[in-house]
Structure formats: C-alpha cells, structure tokens
C-alpha cells in the first residue's frame, strides 16, 4: 500500500500524524515534511498513529530521531498502536529510548494523548 502521512493539530497544541502504508527511504521525506510542519506550529507533543503502518525501514526510524531533534528534547514523541513487527524493530534498534510506545488497546492512555 502506498505511504501516506497526514498531520492534524489539536487546539491543545498537540500534533497528531496518521501514518499508513510502507515507510521506507522513498517515503520517509514525506513523513519528514509533516514533522517539520508540526515543528513550525510549535507542537507541545507529537503523537504518531501507526495502526495502519505496514512496514518501517531504517530511514523511517531516522525520522523519529529527526523529530526529537527538530522539536526539542522536551517534546515527547508518542507512537500509538504500532504493529508488533514495527514495535520489535524499534526496540531491537534501540530507538525505543527516544520515543514512548503506547499500545492502542490502552484506551485511557490513548485518550489522554
């Protein structure tokens, strides 16, 4: 499935990006653009909704770090509902230290984001 990323800013200044399809080197710039847009609007928090993301390559992982760097260390990056292989990839490559992984079934937490 083709990659898509769409940004939505909430009134509370929270940036939500819905990701779907395959995030690889070819599509990573698209994701990066959305992150840049969120940063320009001084988002207080970045929430990445990954329920429909099918695959993430190392180029995609790098955008997560880019997001942290672009938005500042005090802006938390949440990853919500990522599928198990993607969570596993994030853990094995050590990127879980830079983001907060949230299970989509954890309704309370998701709601509070």
């Amino acid at each position, binding site marked *: 499935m083709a990659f898509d990323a769409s940004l939505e800013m909430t009134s509370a200044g929270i940036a939500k990006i819905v990701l779907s399809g395959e995030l690889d080197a070819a599509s990573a710039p698209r994701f990066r653009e959305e992150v840049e847009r969120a940063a320009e609007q001084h988002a207080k928090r970045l929430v990445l909704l990954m329920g429909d993301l099918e695959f993430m390559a190392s180029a995609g992982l790098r955008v997560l770090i880019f997001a942290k760097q672009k938005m500042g260390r005090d802006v938390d990056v949440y990853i919500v509902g990522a599928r198990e292989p993607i969570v596993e990839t994030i853990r094995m490559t050590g*990127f879980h230290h830079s983001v907060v992984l949230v299970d989509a079934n954890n309704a309370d937490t998701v709601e509070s984001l």
Partner: protein
Amino acid sequence: MQRIDVYPTHVYQGFKLRPGRPFPFGAHLVPGGINFSVFSRHANYCCLVLFEKGAREPFVEIPFRGAFLKTDGEPTWGEFRIGNVFTITVFDLDHENLEYGYRMDGPSHGAQQGRPAIHRFDRSKVILDPYARAIAGRDVWGQKPDWTDPFQYRGRIVHDDFDWNGDRPLEIPLEDLVVYEMHVRGFTHHASSGVKNPGTFAAMRAKIPYLKELGINCVELMPIFEFDEFENSRLNDRGEMLLNYWGYSSVGFFAPKAGFASTARMHDATMVADELKTTVRELHQNGIEVILDVVFNHTAEGNEYGPCISYKGTDNATYYMLTPEGYYLNFSGTGNTLNCNNPIVRDLVLNALRYWASEYHIDGFRFDLAAILGRDALGYPLANPPLLETLAYDPILGKCKLIAEAWDAGGLYQVGSFPAYGRWAEWNGRYRDTVRRFLKDDCGLSGAMAAGLMGSPDLYSGRGPTASINFITCHDGFTLADMVSYNWKHNESNGENNNDGANDNNSWNCGVEGPSDDSGVNALRRRQIRNALAMLLVSQGVPMILMGDEIGRTQQGNNNTYCHDNELNWFDWRLLHSNADLFRFTRNCIHFRHAHPVLRGREHMRNRDYVGSGYPDLSWHGTSSWKPDWNGNVVAFLLCGRHARAGSVRDDFVYVAMNMHWEALPFELPVLPAGMLWHVFVNTSVPSPNDAHDPGQEPLLANQRSFLTGARSVAILVGR
C-alpha cells in the same frame, strides 16, 4: 551552502552520474546519490554492477570508462578513475533496495581455479567491494545459501548516523579490566536463555545484568566481521551439520555479521548496524567495554582452490602473500595469508579499525594470529613492522586496547617479544601453560608460577603487567571444566578423526577420563576449577575468563569446537542453577579483585619497601613465612596494601597460599602491622559458601599465626 559538485555530468542507460570522490573507499551516501570508490592497482577494466535487493540479475552495469551521454543528450567520453582508484557518483538510487558489486578485468594469464597465479582477474564474476560496510547474502544465520547464485556476498549501503546519546568509549585502564571472551550466538542461543531473539546482539543486551552481576567490565567478542557460517560446511558421521561457527574467516572487514542481528531478517543493513550500536551503547551504559576479536591474517577466500569473493578478483597480487609462482603462502593454516605490510593492505586494516572505533565506539581489538601482521610480503618477520607501528601510533586508535595473539600457524612465536611500541598487550600463552602445569602438580614450577602471578616481568620488563593478558582457558582448547576432566582431546565429532585441535593441553582429568560418579573425583575437579579461577584473579596483569567457565560449561572434551552450532558451544543457562556455587565463587573473586587495587598494579613489583611501610610491595613465602621454595609445588605471597598503585592508594594486605601438594600443609602466616588481623576470603578446600566469602564480609581468622591449606587448595587472606 549548496555544494557545486552535486550535479550529474554524465548519463548511462538513464542513470545520472558524475566523477566520484576517491576518498573514502567504499560506497557512501552523498547528496543526491551514492559515491562508489574502489582500488585496484592491476585492473585495466572496472564496472559497477547494481542489483535490486536479492535479485539474481543486475539492473545495470556501469563501466568506469567508455561512451556516455552528457545530461543534454550529447555523446561524450568518460573515464571515472583517479590513479588506481575507480570512483563514480550515481544519482537517484534507492539505496535501501540496492546491492552492489564490481566486475574487474586485468592481466590474468589464464589463471584457473586450482592453479597458481599472480593475478586472478575474471570478468565473468561479480565481486564484493573490500570496503563494503554491510554485506548481504548470509543475512539469517543458518539459512542455507543458494549456491547457484553467482553473486553470493553483496555489498549494501548503510547509514552512518546513530543517536549515541552521549556515549563514548569507556577508556577503563587496562589494569582494571576483567575480560570475558564470548561468542555472540553461543551466549544466548540455548533454549534455556529465556530471551527473545536468541543468539543475537539484541539478546546479548538482555543478558547485560548477568555480566554485571558477575563483575565483568569488558566483553571480548569472538569474530563479528561478516563471515560465512557455511564455509566448508559438511555433515559429520553422526549426521550433524558442521558450520564455520566461530567465524575466524573474514568475508569483509567493515561489515558486522548480519546473522548475529535479530533485525537481519528485515534485510535492512542499517538496522543491523543500529542493533549492534545499541548493544555497544547499553554495554557502555553498564560500565562494560567491548573488544573485538579481529581476523586480519587471512580471508575466507582460501588458497588457489578457494572461492573468488573479493580480494582475489580486485587485486590478488596486492592483498595476498604469494610465492613467485603464485601459490598462496599459508601462515594462517587456512590457505592464504593477507599481505598485511603492503601499504594498501595496511591502509585497509587501519581504516577498518578506525571505522570500528569511531563508528561503533569499539574499545579495543584482539588480533587473531597477530604474528602474521609483522611479516613481510614473502613471510619473513620484520624487525619494525610498519602495520604494527602504524596501529600503535594511530590517532583515532589512540585510546583503544590493542591485544596480540602473539603467534601464528607458521611457527612464529612472539610471546614476550611482540613489537609493542609501548601499546600492544599480548595473550600470555606462557602464563596459561604454567598455571595449568602448576595446577596438576608438574614438578618444580613454583618459580615459573611466581613470575606468572606477578604479570610476567621476565617477559614484559619495561612494558608492565598490563602487557600480559592472563588466561587459563580461551575459545581454543578445553573449557575450564574440561581441563580438569580430560587428559586427552575428544574431537571425533569434528569429522577429522580426532586429528585436529591441540595435543599439548596440560590438562589433568583428576583420575577418570570424562564424566564420573566418583564423589572424590568430582570434589577434586570442583576444587581445581576454583584453584584456577583464584590464581587467575589474584595475578597481576589482565585476567580473561572464557564464557561459561563461571558455571562449569563443558564441551565434552572437545578442544576445538570451531564447527559446532550446538550444545557443545552454547551457554546452557540451566548450569547457572546447578552450578550456582561456582558462579558465586567466580563472582566473589572478581569483585574481590575490583575491591583491591593492590591486585591491579600498573607497574611491576619492585620487591622492596619504597613507601616506608616496613614491608616490601611484594614478598614471597612458603610453608614458612619469608622462606619461599622455588622448586616445589607450593607458592605463597604477600602484597602490602600500602604499596597499592605504586603507593598512591591505601589498600588492605592480601596474602595468597597455593598448595598443589596432595596433602594439606600448614602455612606460617607473615605477621601483619600492629592493629591488623587476618580474615579469610577464599579457601577452596571447604564447601560453598565458605569457599569464597562476600568481599568486605570476610570472617576473622581464629589462628592468626598459621593457616592449614588443604590438599591441592588455594587460600586468600585479607589483612585489615
């Protein structure tokens, strides 16, 4: 500022190109494309061959010289070479989905496989870049390769960036290290490890708490450069598949072994790098350094019968030591010998090490068969080997540990004489042999043993005890449990009629060959294991422990398990429960060493009192205090705590009595300074938990004048 040299100048079959940059060698991401650069002195033709990931046929082959188009469509001539370096930048490639190699041609004079030849160029083959930083083809460990694929080992592109989070190499002083020699796969692959993704870097991360509890502050990883576990793979007569499990056979010097990464199944080279870097980062966060066992003495290409993977087809005459007829010189015992002191090869080795030190934050290197690195192109030992000197003085490697296995398979034995340049340490093979012989009560070894215990000043005068990596066991040879259970090697399962592996094991089976139900034999074995560990951990120098010896790992008497991907090599975590007392003993001895700087001198002992304590820094004793017996089977010594670190710190006094006699002997204890009393840390003749007390909690010794050291036992007392 936008660079002005990032635009294409040429087009070939729709691919946009421009002359590349020769440095650095390899394939690197540059703005808009990938820069390829490869050296060959003798090639007269070179072509870049690009594949989609896993594809059998390339999607384009771009020559480095020939007819091209300009970007406006006009025909033009192009040559992408500077000196002996072919270099080109190709734009708009999908680097995540790319694999690459080269086709080269040059003088070959009809070279054939199996025949000697100086040059082995073969235009029909696609070859691996010697500087490939990621290699595909053996991504998932043990997955049988498709041998019909003409391009087996494929270069891949890797991102260098990583979020190190402030990590840097730890630079722990060499004298403070306790090294743990381990195999990445073997450490966690056993089902009992209970971790996810067993056998990988990620799984190793999950076991860091174990290493920490043991007290290890340095892991030495057996080869993690990309190797082919299927090299010489075969079935033995039991029907077991034998593999190149240890990996002492490099395919590439810059690429991590993908099969050790849990992420390798994603076929994404950068993830493999990320996983390894994360592992290094977490080890560092836990105070554990990482030393790599590096194999630069030979490659996986074998002799004239072996495969052409990379170096043979790139520049055989440069990379290998050859006879004038073109046979491979074989100082490594594996078919070929890398021509290490050729300036090009020297650069390859140097660049690889710089890369690992800077890109992966590696803390040091142990060089397999390092004596080869001091030989010239015809194999003669050099008085002042340029490679060893270069490594010793290199700025980037300036704080790395450099450790030589100071011998080779060609008979060059340099323990004590390896060209050190004030930097190099050595695996002290003589220490190993002496301790083993002393342990089994060979005659008259107390004098030699004393030298070993003091960091071998007879070998390393002027270099200090840290030149001596002390070990009793390593991956080569028996495990510690087997060293006290077997007189002879039992390598039948290696499929070589028990002819492989060393015969000079200096081992003693304690009366029965192999497993025994004799309680006396087993008690003696348990004691001998503890004696060995105690000796190792009170010796000046740098102790190295073999993975699993702390839990009594056995290889069933096999002393050369290079080919076994099975229980012979895997760390069985159940032993941690069944041999919990041995683990505790080892842990306490390691923590005792960490607690006592007097055991970890930077300089050799002077055997005199230079701080005015009334005691020499080191004094030798026997069953009578101050009266050593230099030809017996008893050694005792006293370290004066006031002389710790050459008198710069104050430590307790430490007294060690080693009785390898078959009967218990009373040792008269040296008198301590007023106000100090002897406490018992280790007594290997008593059962756990009194065999080693928790450091700092040692009980007071009732009889302060004499200690009865049991038969074949070691006692360590601490005076405070």
